[in-house]
Each structure stands twice: as C-alpha cells, then as structure tokens.
C-alpha cells in the first residue's frame, strides 16, 4: 500500500493522508493508492534503451538518407 504520487509506504497510518506529500487516499478504494511500488529503475533503463535506439536510427538516417551533404562534404573541406 503505497502513495500514488510519491510511493510513500501508507501502511499503519492513522489518517488517510500521505504524510510525505499530503495526497489523500481511501483504504477501501484500491484506485487511490498503489499496491506495489513500480520498478522505476527498470522503467528508466527501458526508456534510455528506446532513446538510444531512436537516436541511433536518426543518426543513421542523417548520415545516409535524409541529408547526405549536411555534415559530410569532401575531406578537404575541413571535416
């Protein structure tokens, strides 16, 4: 039983309010709190993996298809 906003442990509280962030909850309503803390680390790693994949695809498209002369001129041009 954890706060939906800050994931504070709400078990054993005397009043239905998160002492960390003030969010109210109803112990009888499971939609007002979380039963488990989400795995934030796994979510972050998954997000970074997606960002990396998209960035690599974008880099490939920039280099090969979209604007082939954007970065890459003849070697003598200073690049």
């Amino acid at each position: 039983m954890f706060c939906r906003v800050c994931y504070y442990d709400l078990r054993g509280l005397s009043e239905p309010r998160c002492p960390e962030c003030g969010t109210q909850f109803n112990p009888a309503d499971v939609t007002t709190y979380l039963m488990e803390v989400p795995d934030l680390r796994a979510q972050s790693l998954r997000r970074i993996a997606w960002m990396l994949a998209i960035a690599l695809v974008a880099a490939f498209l920039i280099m090969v298809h979209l604007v082939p002369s954007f970065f890459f001129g003849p070697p003598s041009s200073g690049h």
Partner: protein
Amino acid sequence: MDKQRDGVPGSFKYCFDPVCLTALTIYLANRWFMKPHWGAYISFFPDYLNDFLCIPLFLPPVLLVNCLLGVRQRSRYPTAFELLFHLVVWSVCFEVVAPLFSAVFHTTAGALDVAAYALGAGVAGLVWGSWRHGRLAGVWHGRSPARFRRGEDVRTPIVFP
C-alpha cells in the same frame, strides 16, 4: 516529475518549435547563400555552422518520435539529460563511427566538430531551459516577462481611429 510550469504559454511544439525553425532557416541560408558567398572568407560557415545547428535542428523531430512512441511526456521542453544524451550519442556516431567508413561518408573526425555540436546544444538548451522555467515566457507572447510571470496581462488594446 515534470517541472514545466503550467503558466508558461504554449508548450514544446517539436518540429514547429521556434529554435528548430530558426535552425532550419539558418541551415537553408547557409546552404544557399552564406556558404557560396562568404564561405571562402569565413571558414566557420562551410566547416562548423552545420555542426552547430545539429542539435537545435534534429533534436526536436527525434523527440517527436520519442513522444509518439510513448518514451517521453508530450509537450515537455527538452531536458538537460536529453540534450546531453543525444550530444554524446551523435558525437560518437558522426565523429567516431562515420570516419571509420570515410570512403562512404567522406568525413574525418574532428574535436572542433564536437565542440560545435556542444555549443549548439548549449545555446538551444539555454533557450529551451529559459522557456521551460518561464523566464522568456512573456517574450514569446510579446509581453513583458516580469509582468507575465506576475499574471498581469499587459497587452495593449488596438484602438482604431
């Protein structure tokens, strides 16, 4: 948690972001005017201006793809992490990987190219960061930033004679 203020007028518009559109305009001007006319005299235009424009021009559409795939929150200005992440990834791609295939891409590695990427990312990040935190919010709507932050509408009514 997203720290973008609710009071900031508008939100990040991705490909229609003013920074992206400005970078696109400068890129086209450089390609068709500045480089042919001034490139022989000022080596910055043919050598480094496109590198400088890399992040401001390409990051917004890439973040739009991130948004469409649900990787990032909609309408949020680019964060420092997103800027640094793409700066590092693209620097490695363009200055480490691409030169390995120089016969295909006709490119060589250069530390100044990375510096140009970083400078462009820094300038874009300053502007996006300012808008995210509302410091230039009023400027974007043609109002006084200080008065806009205080919630005062200082638009001058148009009076017809």
